[in-house]
């Protein structure tokens, strides 16, 4: 039993080059959203097993945070898309929750770092270098970014493999999937690098860095909201 996604509020039309809008386009949209993350993964992360584990666990953590948020918001859904202010509240609560989770991630990471350093002292090897710490932060951020791209973009991308496409309301020439992929790409980049900045900020006690990350996250989310409401 396949769940039908309700696209009815978008304007749909068979595009003139319908022969080209096929599997190639679908793969193109998927790679647009995930390409840089995949490149980062293959070059930096796949060399070390520990980073792969970090990516997987941070992806899982992001998914769990999303489930908790959806559990909280479920009684209020489906939101009436005529009144757009509920989306603002949704974004603010979600961003606040995810930033709180980032702090929790940092605390867990500190404990892990202490364990790893103690182990390194026991086997008489050098402790974690700053590069290694930033790599772990990068892997964590990449997990979040990839999870975002997969859940928000790839899961609604299935119709893009068919012969036609959907266009957005405000820009009738842009396919909906293209916009979705570009936004997913932007957010993946934001997630990946904000984890590095946040971890650096927390470890150095730099207030500017620490505040920079939640502010950027909130601004990005709210900009999306303003596009919706205009």
């Amino acid at each position, binding site marked *: 039993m396949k769940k039908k996604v309700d696209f009815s509020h978008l304007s749909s039309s068979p595009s003139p080059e319908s022969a080209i809008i096929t599997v190639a386009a679908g793969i193109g949209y998927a790679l647009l959203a995930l390409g840089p993350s995949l490149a980062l993964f293959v070059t930096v992360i796949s060399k070390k097993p520990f980073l792969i584990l970090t990516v*997987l666990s941070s992806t899982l953590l992001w*998914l769990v945070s999303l489930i908790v948020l959806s559990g909280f918001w479920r009684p209020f859904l489906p939101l009436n898309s005529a009144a757009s202010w509920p989306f603002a509240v*949704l974004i603010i609560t979600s961003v606040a929750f995810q930033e709180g989770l980032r702090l929790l991630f940092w605390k867990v990471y500190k404990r892990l770092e202490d364990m790893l350093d103690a182990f390194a002292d026991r086997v008489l090897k050098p402790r974690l*270098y700053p590069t290694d710490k930033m790599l772990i932060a990068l892997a964590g951020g990449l997990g979040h970014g990839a999870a975002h791209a*997969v859940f928000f973009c790839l899961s609604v991308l299935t119709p893009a493999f068919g012969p036609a496409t959907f266009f957005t309301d405000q820009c009738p020439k842009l396919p909906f999937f293209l916009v979705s992929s570009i936004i997913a790409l932007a957010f993946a980049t934001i997630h990946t690098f904000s984890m590095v900045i946040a971890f650096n900020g927390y470890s150095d006690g730099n207030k500017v860095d620490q505040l920079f990350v939640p502010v950027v996250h909130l601004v990005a989310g709210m900009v999306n909201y303003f596009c919706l409401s205009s």
Partner: protein
Amino acid sequence: MGFSSFIVLLFLGGEIALFLIRKFSVPIDCFTFLVLLFNFAAVGVFAVFLSKMAIIVTQGYLVAIGMLVAYWFTLLPEWTTWVLLVALALYDLAAVLLPVGPLRLLVELAISRDEDIPALVYEARPVINHDQGSGEYEGQRRAWRRRRESGNDSESDHNIGTSDAEVTAPLIQNRVSSVVDGQESSVASTDNSFLEGIGLGSSGAIKLGLGDFIFYSVLVGRAAMYDFMTVYACYLAIIAGLGVTLMLLALYQQALPALPVSIAFGVLFYFLTRLLLEEFVVQCSLNLVMF
């Protein structure tokens, strides 16, 4: 064991190949198809039986067998599949951990007779890191040992290598110390047979039964029949469950059931995603509201 894998590869694989041939209109005649299928199945039996083949061929065939059986299991009705998975997880828990459990008796018998466990097991060998400078392929065990030593010696990859070796070391600590210390063969062999029994092979491999693979695939396949989001969620849940199981394996040092934790997480995440997450994410992404 060989006969059953032959049957799986020949008949189940043949059926799926016939579906694909019909769907994509592949121009092939039945005699060529029979010859190819028979060869595929025969090589599969040898790959699974003998351990002299390249490990990638054996692993590939085990994955193929797992996939084929899982595909046919997904043809069950939906509620039957979920109840079956939960019941099997509970049975696995009982059979491996209880003292009268059949699987536990089997493992203990195999350890006491110093034999391999007679089942289809998937062995995940550790990856040889090429940039560590050990380009030797003389045998997985020696390459693994040499990798640890070259991690100590090489100056240039010192900071890259050590943080990798030390953080992967805790999971396989006991095996490495028993190999590297170079004790006399009798002590080493009892250590190795003990470790074989708990699923850590002498080459540092982690062994996972093929039945576990099949039921993970059935879970993900059934999730795929609903929507893509459930697939991703269940995939992550199963990987997390496997990670937890491996950590418990390192902690308890005895044969553990691999099904319960992963199936529990998988089923939980499937129902949570289907009931809660999907509405939320579809609402947000269709209105292009992302955070």
